[in-house]
């Protein structure tokens, strides 16, 4: 019976894990270790801004221990979706941290950087040739949409990872990659069946999330023939059929069909069985090859944003909050128009915590009993100065507007901060969410090799 062991250190590189978990995991002699570093989950800003949603300090800590362990055991260390969003600045940021650790720890290795930010004019040509399809009710991808995006990444499948491993890469930093691809790649290359290999990738993409208690930490997955076993190295955690089943539903629109580059993972007949007190066996998945597509993700600038945060404890105001906010909007409009900013040149949204600040229109409870309400006012405009000017007026109007029966004549709101207005800078929105059919799974993902010697 063939067996392949993979160790994922954390849900996201930089979310942390117990050092002891890595040590225990390494004692099981994994064939590969790694972590997924990214997600679209923190929203469009990070892809647009070229920065990570994790801190450099935390990422460096997580990576340092992994690189030392991987070099000592002479196994590959693979990082997917580098820098959180997998664009060029993200990949370079990740590589610089790796080089710094290598210098500090006197590590030497062959590193592969797999790029995932395709050339714009090449994308324009492919879209014009009818090779792209919209996802999620997006419009068709056209030249204008491609050129106006701040950044577009393509999501690689396993093939570029396999190519880098074949070339002898010992540390692989990938740009945007499908979450399970880095794991499926290593297992498939070792000759394992694609179905459990892809499923293993789905289990490993978020570290110890398929365990209980569920917190960022390590997960070991062992693939054997047509099934896999999930087990956390950390003795305080265990995998149960419920904890693994829970994670099997994670972030997918369908629990039974998972579309991946080059195929469909069907999990409708999967079974979750107790292997040991701390390990679960998953079996019954199937993999059906399909025409190869990769996903494109892109964001465009939507404006510039400023916010302010305040709260009220006044029962008279709380009892008429809807009409108060309507009046507030009208007053802000008039005052902004007076300094030359018409109502159609900005968008203002007021979130009311204690009422419907979390669910907005989906909130089923319409009658509130809160003794205090919190507000986050957001203004988005085409430039920062306009957003700042409108938020400043929105803040003063919120504080000082009159209302029927008002007793609190010095001010309606408690502002917790000075400065009270917070400039959030550029705001991005997802503008590209399409598939692209490449001729070759590697052609969009050039690999650069670097010999790191210390």
């Amino acid at each position, binding site marked *: 019976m063939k067996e392949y062991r993979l160790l994922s250190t954390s849900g996201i590189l930089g979310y942390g894990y117990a050092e002891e978990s890595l040590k225990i995991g390494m004692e099981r002699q994994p064939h590969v270790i790694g972590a997924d570093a990214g997600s679209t989950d923190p929203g469009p800003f990070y892809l647009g801004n070229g920065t990570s949603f994790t801190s450099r300090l935390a990422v460096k800590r997580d990576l340092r221990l992994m690189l030392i362990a991987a070099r000592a055991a002479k196994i590959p260390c693979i990082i997917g979706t580098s820098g959180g969003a997998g664009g060029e600045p993200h990949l370079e940021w990740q590589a610089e941290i790796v080089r710094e650790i290598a210098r500090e720890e006197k590590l030497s290795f062959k590193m592969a950087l797999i790029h995932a930010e395709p050339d714009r004019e090449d994308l324009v040509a492919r879209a014009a040739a009818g090779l792209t399809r919209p996802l999620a009710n997006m419009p068709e991808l056209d030249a204008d949409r491609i050129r106006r995006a701040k950044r577009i990444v393509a999501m690689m499948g396993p093939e570029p990872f396999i190519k880098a491993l074949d070339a002898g890469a010992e540390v692989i930093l990938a740009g945007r990659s499908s979450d399970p691809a880095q794991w499926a790649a290593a297992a498939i290359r070792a000759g394992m069946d694609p179905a459990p290999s892809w499923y293993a990738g789905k289990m490993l993409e978020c570290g110890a999330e398929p365990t209980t208690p569920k917190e960022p930490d390590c997960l070991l997955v062992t693939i054997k023939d047509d099934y896999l076993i999930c087990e956390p190295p950390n003795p305080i955690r265990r995998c149960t059929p419920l904890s693994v*089943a829970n994670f099997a539903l994670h972030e997918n629109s*369908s629990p039974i069909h998972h579309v991946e580059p080059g195929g469909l993972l069907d999990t409708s007949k999967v079974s979750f069985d107790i292997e040991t007190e701390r390990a679960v066996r998953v079996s019954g998945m199937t993999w059906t090859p399909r025409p190869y597509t990769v996903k494109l993700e892109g964001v465009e600038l939507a404006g510039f944003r400023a916010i302010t945060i305040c709260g009220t404890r006044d029962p008279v105001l709380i009892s008429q909050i809807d009409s108060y906010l309507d009046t507030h909007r009208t007053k802000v409009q008039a005052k902004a128009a007076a300094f030359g900013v018409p109502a159609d040149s900005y968008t203002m949204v007021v979130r009311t915590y204690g009422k419907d600040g979390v669910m907005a229109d989906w909130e089923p409870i319409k009658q509130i009993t809160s003794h205090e309400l919190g507000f986050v006012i957001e203004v988005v405009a085409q430039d920062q100065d306009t957003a700042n000017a409108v938020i400043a007026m929105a803040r003063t109007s919120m504080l000082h507007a009159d209302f029927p029966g008002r007793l609190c004549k010095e001010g309606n709101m408690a502002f917790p901060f000075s400065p009270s207005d917070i400039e959030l800078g550029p705001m991005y929105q997802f503008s590209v969410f399409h598939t692209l059919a490449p001729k070759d799974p590697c052609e969009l993902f050039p690999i650069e090799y670097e010999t790191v010697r210390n």
Partner: protein
Amino acid sequence: MPKIREIAQICKSKNAGPFLVTIDILFEDPARYRAVKATGVITEALFAKLYGVKESDVLLTPYDSANAFKATLPRQVPAGGIGDTDVYGAQQHAPLLDVEVPINL
């Protein structure tokens, strides 16, 4: 009649990409899951009513392997867009907790 919060072990929501939110209800005991499924309470219509969305916008999949129901809805605002209240989509499950299910415990 027991409520979902009293009989399910997990009830949660999360983004499924930036344009969808997905809501899961899981049961540890397969018999209880089957009993809940047999009541026919958990339907597209239930989600449509609770969230004020169109029934045709709800993709509901009972997943027997995991003793789970999964419902996926289009987000009100794409993640991180103007007026979004929940970038991760992690706090959209609560209306389900008090849904009553006619089963005997």
